[in-house]
């Protein structure tokens, strides 16, 4: 009996809704993002590979796998090879905690929200290592910038997530999802007028800092193509670059999935009893696509900030607002609104 | 005709007066275009005078021409407000082309002098950084492509 359960768990982790599903969904999100970005600019976007170009990210991945893999003379060979793999593994690992087919993730334990947050900060550190190990001038500047950006966006990101945990009085992702459904009856962000006002702020902060986390315009400072030639990833080619790009796609799934989980009621939605996993997956996809739409729209709307402007903006505006928002939540809890 | 060229003639006369014997020739080519030909060691004086008297502050470029026996240098100056173009012409020896830099009067000459050095081999004394501008770093020494005796076949 236990063997079968273990087998099911392994299947869940490896195939659905684990690694394979997430990778495929990551490619789909990348296509969705690119296509939308193109439509915002009145372009076509990818259109050749598969229907409407849906297979383009996959084709890019295969192409990169077949490309020449160069390790620079000055690079730290071990670190240079290890970081892409580690980044890929870490980003896959975080996804196991995101509820997709049911109200809890594949892995779930009390306090897993903190654990996920901790692992997601490792993204930033790994990017710094990636730049540092390649030993290129541009990637060293990219590393510097990643480090600076990291200390700016990580705090509001965590604060906005924690404020959600505060109201649910739990650090377990499953409980937060259940709280939204059972206690509020609706996703957090639209449950009541009060939660709408308070959590719209948290949601906006979350989106802005996740733009920085995903290194998208206006915060694509560490890889700014026209300035430092793509920064920390300038020396990566072939398979390593393919892994990095896949990891970026997975990060996109993670960020939009976490947003859906925390603010939009997780994968929960109207469904036929007995077919919950199917409907939940569909609801998850719809909700993440909504988040992706907002992110794509934001990234096509701005010019890139300078690193000093970005750090100043985050510390001057975003972090104080995030702290005020947490205080507001505390006060509301004290008054017994929640 | 005389009325039209009176301003240009006035410019030429003023140069003649100041430079005296060092003034070789002055002629007008087109509207408000004055060419002043001076001897080798007076060109800087002429340039300074053009800058001070006629406020021709804009050094457009320096043209070098290989005439066969000599190398001719043309300093094209512009005074935008009265659309006056003054060209100071001077000739230097072709076998040992050396002349003082004018970058102390016109800082923009730094680039143009490097270009003339690169293509014609004129050495500008006092230029802080007289290196290749347009030619590659491994270009052979003493080969100057804009001289008339240089043919592209020599590069093979």
């Amino acid at each position, binding site marked *: 009996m236990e063997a079968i359960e273990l087998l099911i768990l392994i299947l869940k982790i490896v195939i659905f809704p684990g690694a394979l599903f997430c990778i495929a969904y990551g490619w789909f999100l990348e296509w969705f993002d690119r296509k939308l970005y193109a*439509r*915002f600019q*009145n372009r076509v976007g990818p*259109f050749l590979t598969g229907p409407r170009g849906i297979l383009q990210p996959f084709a890019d991945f295969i192409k990169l796998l077949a490309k020449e893999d160069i390790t620079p003379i000055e690079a730290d060979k071990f670190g240079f090879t290890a970081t892409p793999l580690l980044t890929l593994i870490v980003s896959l690992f975080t996804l196991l905690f995101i509820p997709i087919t049911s109200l809890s993730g594949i892995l779930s334990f009390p306090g897993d929200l903190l654990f996920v947050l901790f692992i997601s900060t490792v993204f930033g550190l790994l990017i710094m290592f990636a730049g540092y190990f390649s030993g290129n001038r541009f990637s060293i500047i990219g590393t510097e910038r990643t480090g600076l950006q990291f200390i700016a966006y990580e705090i509001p990101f965590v604060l906005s997530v924690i404020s959600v945990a505060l109201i649910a009085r739990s650090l377990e992702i499953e409980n937060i999802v259940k709280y939204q459904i059972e206690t509020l009856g609706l996703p957090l962000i639209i449950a009541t007028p009060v939660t709408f006002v308070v959590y719209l702020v948290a949601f906006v902060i979350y989106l802005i800092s996740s733009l920085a986390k995903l290194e998208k315009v*206006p915060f694509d400072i560490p890889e700014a193509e026209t300035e430092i030639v793509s920064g920390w990833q300038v020396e990566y080619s072939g398979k390593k670059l393919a892994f990095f790009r896949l990891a970026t796609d997975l990060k996109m799934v993670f960020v939009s999935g976490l947003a859906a989980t925390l603010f939009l009621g997780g994968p929960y939605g109207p469904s036929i009893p007995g077919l919950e996993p199917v409907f939940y997956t569909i609801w998850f996809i719809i909700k993440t696509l909504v988040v992706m739409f907002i992110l794509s*729209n934001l990234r*096509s*709307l*701005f010019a890139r900030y300078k690193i000093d402007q970005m750090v100043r903006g985050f510390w001057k505006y975003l972090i104080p607002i995030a702290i005020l928002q947490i205080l507001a939540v505390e006060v509301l809890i004290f008054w017994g609104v929640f | 005709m005389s009325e039209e060229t009176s301003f240009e003639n006035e410019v030429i006369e003023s140069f003649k007066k100041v430079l005296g014997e060092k003034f070789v020739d002055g002629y007008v080519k087109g509207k408000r275009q004055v060419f002043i030909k001076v001897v080798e060691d007076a060109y800087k004086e002429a340039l300074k005078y053009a800058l001070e008297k006629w406020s021709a502050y804009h050094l457009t470029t320096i043209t070098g021409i290989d005439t066969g026996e000599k190398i001719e240098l043309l300093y094209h100056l512009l005074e935008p407000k009265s659309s006056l173009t003054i060209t100071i012409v001077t000739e230097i020896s072709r076998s040992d082309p050396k002349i003082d830099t004018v970058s102390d009067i016109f800082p923009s000459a730094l680039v143009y002098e490097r270009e003339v050095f690169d293509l014609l081999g004129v050495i500008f004394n006092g230029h802080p950084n007289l290196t290749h501008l347009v030619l590659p770093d491994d270009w052979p020494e003493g080969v100057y492509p804009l001289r008339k005796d240089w043919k592209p076949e020599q590069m093979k």
Partner: protein
Amino acid sequence: MHYPGALEKELLKHIPKKPATEMYPFVKVEAPEGYRGKIAFDIQKCIGCSLCALNCPSGAIEMVKDDRTKLKKKPKFFYSRCLFCGQCEEVCPRKAIKLTREFELADYDKEKMVIDV
């Protein structure tokens, strides 16, 4: 008054709109009237005066022997070197050279990029 996101209205307008991209290699595009493309040469009109070869700025025209023309010479066009300036069309006294609207001329083999009527 300035704020981030001034383009937002314009962007949302683009979502239902058809993209401005012309799907060129899949959907052919016509060059406009008077376009300077591939050279069309009419040997019947040619008298072999060599004016085109003399005036060609890039040396894309060579005169070769041919008995059909008056001066026993005719131009051979190497359009891999051609600038498409239309100077040959302009100087031709008999209007034997004409630039057409054809523009897809790329080839892997330089030897094939010759007009030799």
